[in-house]
């Protein structure tokens, strides 16, 4: 048996190190280390509650709006504030603008370039992978970067700038839009739709989103295996068996995405169990964080619910190997992300694919691309739903004492903020980010987190110091390490 320390990983957000035990050319056990700590939960102590809206977006530059939305929701919960329908629609457009940009960035800039590596030079598709996805010259990488830039101009109008917009308030959005602007925004959504339909899918979004099952997907693929980048990816899946690489824990968490004015969700949440194909209602009271293997104080009370959570560095703690705590749902390891949203939200192709293969490199990436196809038409609807001239934001006043919970979905999965306010100041603020779930260390019982489980059995080729299979598995989660440990 040998040990391999892998890092720095790139094309993930933030810095990541993975320690692998290797036996017979396979990973037998993995430990995931988030190597950087900044301490946002400590920084927020004693602040004016509303100031959280300045600090929390800066937890993460790739999902800053998701952080704002979770925080605004926690403050709205604290103050009993309900935003008007226009505020809800504008918030959804802003949030989806970021989420979908993330999916695009992940696929084109972070995930696919690995297939342009020399290690794959012997495969029939390699030259095409280089032409499309080499990071510097790849045609699709460059086209996607341009499409992303154009798409994020929607954020310029609605959020002022990105990242770190402050237009999201507990009471709505600070940027009202008029009918002329709405027309322009709709044109920009159509421009993005057209990029996706020409380059990524080589098919209408609706046709992709309505593929009912795997059989239909592979039939569609067989029609023209290299047309569009999704079908190209499917070609690689077959050739490299990505459908069985990186098996996750089989339980999936989504808080529900895109709140609607009537209180429902555009993508309803819940806990999906692959073994029984069952969707359970989420019990948010069952969320805990276990700090046994984190360089953080435990307070001697075992795993804590975030409302009573503590974050205090203990850099010399024995047995610790990461700055990340281990979030658990009723004691269980869960996976979160687009795959969980699509499973909980009842998308039939993703449910079918996961039933056949589980949560793997293939199904995680597929779920993100299906989400792109599903959500763009929703963005068009939300913009249509805006009533120019009606209120976008109601003034909010916050109580001197109380608590609030803000749950939502970032591109990478379930994001929660918990705030406790005493005498007008933040007494406690705890954040549980999507990658905290996915890249969790072991808990007190020694149970590994989702990625730690998914890495077991990954193949390590002779002489590999940064195994390619490990890179595919890590990136299939689209991790964000700066969020993980905040």
């Amino acid at each position, binding site marked *: 048996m040998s040990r391999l320390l892998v890092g720095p990983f790139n094309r993930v957000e933030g810095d990541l190190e993975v320690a692998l035990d290797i036996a017979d050319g396979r990973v037998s056990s993995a430990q995931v280390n988030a190597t950087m700590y900044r301490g946002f939960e400590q920084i927020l102590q004693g602040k004016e509650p509303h100031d959280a809206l300045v600090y929390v977006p800066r937890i993460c530059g790739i999902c800053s709006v998701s952080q704002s939305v979770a925080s605004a929701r926690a403050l709205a919960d604290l103050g009993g504030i309900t935003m008007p329908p226009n505020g809800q629609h504008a918030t959804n457009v802003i949030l989806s603008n970021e989420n979908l940009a993330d999916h695009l960035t992940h696929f084109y800039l972070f995930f696919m370039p690995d297939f342009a590596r020399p290690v794959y030079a012997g495969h029939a598709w390699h030259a095409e992978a280089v032409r499309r996805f080499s990071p510097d010259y790849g045609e699709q990488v460059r086209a996607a970067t341009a499409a992303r830039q154009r798409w994020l101009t929607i954020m310029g109008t609605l959020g002022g700038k990105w990242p770190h917009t*402050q237009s999201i308030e507990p009471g709505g959005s600070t940027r009202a839009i008029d009918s002329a602007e709405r027309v322009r925004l709709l044109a920009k959504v159509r421009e993005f739709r057209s990029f996706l339909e020409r380059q990524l899918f080589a098919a209408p979004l609706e046709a992709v989103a309505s593929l009912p099952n795997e059989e239909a997907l592979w039939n569609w693929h067989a029609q023209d295996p290299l047309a569009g980048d999704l079908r190209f990816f499917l070609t690689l899946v077959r050739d490299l068996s990505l459908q069985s690489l990186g098996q996750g824990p089989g339980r999936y968490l989504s808080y529900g995405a895109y709140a609607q004015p009537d209180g429902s969700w555009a993508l309803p949440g819940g806990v999906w169990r692959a073994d029984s194909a069952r969707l359970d209602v989420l019990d948010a009271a069952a969320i805990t964080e276990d700090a046994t293997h984190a360089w953080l104080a435990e307070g001697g009370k075992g795993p804590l619910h975030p409302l009573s959570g503590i974050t205090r560095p203990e850099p010399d703690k024995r047995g610790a190997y990461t700055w990340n705590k281990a979030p658990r749902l009723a004691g269980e390891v869960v996976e979160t992300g687009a795959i969980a949203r699509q499973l909980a939200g009842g998308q039939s192709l993703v449910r079918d694919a996961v039933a056949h293969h589980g949560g793997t490199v293939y199904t995680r990436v597929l779920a993100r691309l299906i989400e792109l196809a599903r959500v763009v038409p929703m963005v068009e609807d939300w913009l249509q739903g805006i009533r120019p001239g009606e209120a976008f934001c109601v003034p909010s006043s916050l109580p001197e004492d109380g608590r609030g919970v803000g749950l939502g979905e970032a591109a990478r999965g379930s994001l929660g903020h918990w705030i406790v306010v005493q005498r007008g100041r933040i007494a406690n603020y705890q954040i549980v980010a999507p990658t905290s779930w996915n890249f969790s260390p072991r808990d007190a019982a020694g149970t590994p987190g989702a990625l730690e489980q998914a890495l077991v059995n990954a193949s390590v080729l002779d002489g590999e110091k940064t195994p390619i299979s490990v890179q595919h598995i890590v990136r299939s989660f689209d991790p964000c390490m700066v969020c993980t440990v905040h």
Partner: protein
Amino acid sequence: MNVLWLQSGGCGGCSMSLLCADTTDFQGHLRDGGIQLLWHPSLSLASGEEVIELLDALAAGNTLLDVLCVEGSLLRGPNGTGRFHMLAGTGLPMIDWVKRLAARAKHVMAVGSCAAWGGITAGGNNPTDACGLQFEDDQLGGLLGAAFRSGSGLPVINVAGCPTHPSWITDTLMALAANTFNAEDLDPLNRPRSYADQLVHHGCTRNEYYEFKASAEKPSDLGCMMEHMGCKGTQVHADCNIRLWNGEGSCTRGGYACIACTEPGFQEPGHPFHETPKLAGIPIGLPTDMPKAWFVALASLSKSATPKRVKNNAVADHLVVRPAVRKTRLK
């Protein structure tokens, strides 16, 4: 020009902002400007041991390093060990890597307010002992020390902002690649003058409201945000309202106050961000270059002269009174 980009105690947002540069071909845009990214954490193919080999070659001087870009603040804690950020796979604190590489670089660039001053990471009680490359808030020093000069003789170039505007970065890199960037191009805080010689207030769409002190009272109102909503645009160095963000945005156009994110110490203003601190009803932070007595006199005069249109629109989120249409020809 060889550029190495490292990230430490920040959020990666300055990189994400860079990717929004206004061009139809980002990768070509850099190349055409003479910029070669040796490695960037989000954009390069190299990972793991390939990166460590590159860093070793740069630190040893075997590969030329023209620009070292650092994004994120430098985490000196706990107790000066730098262990709050160990560069993955290397067993070494990031601050050690930065010191070694800065000693080899022709230019050193702080990307964003974290790397320039410490930024948001240094907020609160600064749990990680975060600082900037050559500043700690507005005090010279930081990780590299006040006396530090890179190979070119320049101090650290502070492309501050949280995040930085993409073209503040690309313009500066391109000027460096073209050898046209000199000490005179830096302002007193070592920010490039190309963006720091403007105030955020310049070009703000709320200027007419400002003239009449017609002020926003709640989020989403159209009025000027200086009097009540914490806007510091009249004092803050940056061209956000001239060189717009993401196509057509800026903080004030997005409906919220300028919080001075290009300035040292912005993370701890000493008052709630969205409220203007006042003394006897008068904002403490007066416009740069404006004597207080004049401000008070002008404000009371202009308030009494405020047109109804400006007054009413200031406290609504859309126009409730439109500019009058005159039936005669304009003179």
